[in-house]
């Protein structure tokens, strides 16, 4: 873990993970992960629960620490160096399963918090940007409400807008629709599809296979802490190679 790349050279790969391992105590959660994400690529990660998908993408903005191997985001290596972590977090947006909006701040304040305190944007400007993205996710009229007053789908769209306000180059989605009522899933997925059309680099942990078919450039299947299979969506769904992938697909597409 000696190499610390701080160069701001425009690298071709958005994310590069090489031989990454992670343990929780004695438990080996991520085993030898190798993954390269090109700029503008959209990747869907699926797999049974406990397979390490969430842990993997949480390693990419250092919400979790990895113990072996390398993760380079935007050409910057993730190490203990706080400067690197700050730099990466400025470039990487994240959307959580349970939204994690700040309940004591209005929707608008949620969106302007990071631009004001991290990017040091003037308030007026931050609010303009926030309104732009709130319009983009189609809820500008809710700007002055509190998160607790919104429906789950609306909250998740605010969370997406909040991340976009930092103008990230990469977006991570950690099961963004699995805490939502069925009728609200589509409004969030529409927002994500819209986002994909702008050429954003996206890593998305989700079980929405329709979304994967429509948007993904690549689908990754994980099980037991390993990447078992990765392929183009068409190939992945019609002709899975590995037995475990077949089993998983038959279970989630079975009905």
């Amino acid at each position: 873990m000696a190499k610390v790349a701080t160069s701001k050279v425009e690298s071709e790969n958005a994310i590069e993970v090489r031989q990454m391992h992670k343990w929780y105590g004695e438990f080996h959660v991520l085993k030898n992960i190798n993954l390269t994400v090109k700029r503008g690529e959209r990747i869907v990660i699926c797999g049974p629960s406990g397979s390490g998908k969430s842990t993997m993408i949480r390693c990419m903005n250092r919400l979790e620490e990895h113990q072996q191997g390398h993760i380079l985001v935007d050409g910057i290596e993730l190490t203990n160096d706080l400067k690197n972590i700050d730099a990466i977090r400025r470039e990487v947006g994240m959307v959580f399963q349970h939204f994690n909006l700040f309940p004591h701040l209005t929707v608008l304040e949620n969106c302007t918090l990071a631009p004001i305190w991290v990017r040091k944007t003037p308030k007026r400007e931050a609010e303009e940007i926030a309104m732009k993205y709130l319009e983009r996710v189609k809820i500008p009229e809710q700007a002055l409400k509190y998160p607790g007053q919104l429906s789950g789908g609306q909250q998740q769209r605010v969370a997406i807008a909040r991340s976009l306000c930092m103008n990230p180059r990469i977006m991570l989605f950690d099961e963004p629709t699995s805490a939502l009522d069925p009728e609200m899933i589509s409004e969030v997925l529409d927002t994500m599809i819209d986002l994909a059309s702008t050429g954003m680099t996206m890593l998305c942990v989700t079980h929405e296979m329709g979304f994967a078919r429509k948007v993904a450039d690549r689908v990754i299947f994980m099980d037991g802490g390993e990447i078992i299979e990765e392929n183009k969506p068409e190939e992945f769904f019609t002709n899975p190679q590995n037995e475990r992938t077949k089993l998983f697909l038959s279970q989630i597409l079975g009905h």
Partner: protein
Amino acid sequence: MSVASDTDSTPQRGGIMRLWYDSEARQVIIQIFTIAVLFALVFYLVRNAVINLDAIGKSLGFDFLFQPANYDINQSFLEYDSRSSNLKAAIVGLLNTFLVAGLGIFIATIVGFVMGVLRLSKNFLMNRLVYCYVEAMRNVPVLLWILLVHGFIVVNMPGPRQALGLGESFFFSNRGINMPSPLPEPLFWATAITFILGVIGAIVFKRYAKKIQDETGKILPVLYVSFGLIVVLPVIVYFITGAPLNWETPAMQGFNFQGGYVVKPELIALTLALALYTSAFIAETVRSGILAVNYGQTEAAGALGLRNNRTLQLVVIPQAMRVIVPPLTSQYLNLTKNSSLAIAIGYMDITATLGGITLNQTGREMECMILVMAIYLCISLAVSSFMNWYNNRIKLIER
């Protein structure tokens, strides 16, 4: 809503039974009955009291408040001697209650917050140490702590002649703490004014910094500048004007110290015991308040690129305070009410003056107890109505 009504399902019944099975009528009947019983009880008690008082020839009245109290109070903010009225004794007592409550709350808050945060520390040793402190403090009655500290000071501390000195100005003995009192020279006003200006300056600067941040996004170092304005600047002025503040240090004369301030053992024991006892509860409150903020909030703030201290300042503390403040206030109220235990060691608070010596000397149990309870009630109600207002103001808005 929780009262089941079964008017529809019951067949027609006659007379009073019909009223009883009408849900609204039943509610009215129950309430009238309750009030009637209550009035009867109050009437009965008051009638007994009137008869009893008549029998011993006492009448209710508050004249005694204006008669001389005939006892001394060894610590008073006001001019007081044994010829002062009972009312004045009560006021002196009330001020003493406020003094011990104020000091106790101040110390308890600081100690409690520090302990609460340390209790969450990842450091194993510190964590365990604070755990022991909290459990030891809160599982022993506060009255016992008061007596223990008081007993320690009065019995185990040396007499004034062998007092433990901290330098040449602070002395700890079984008579309490003797410390220097300030004697400001005329020029000292310059330092005082600088300090006041410093505080005003810090407030103005904070507003200015907010405005600058809103307009340009630049974040100014408010903390350092405030520190400079409030602390460093007055210190500089103080020394430029030639350190115009003298101290009257306590000195041994005969069997005791003369000069300076004396803090009596009763006040020390009461303040310390109340503060440390309450600090254990505050520590638990603070700990659970911080734990109540969902970890996802910290993660989300981290994912947005906020540094740890900013996450605390902008996300965790504002949410934790909502959880902490209501129980914190009730701890403050508990401390204030517990300060009435002063009577056990002879500190003259409102309970010990009006509810203690005045009561015993005048024999006016009824009047004295009513007054004492009314005073405590007023304090409690004032604080809790303020709390309700505050809670409503900061309540999280949900649908």
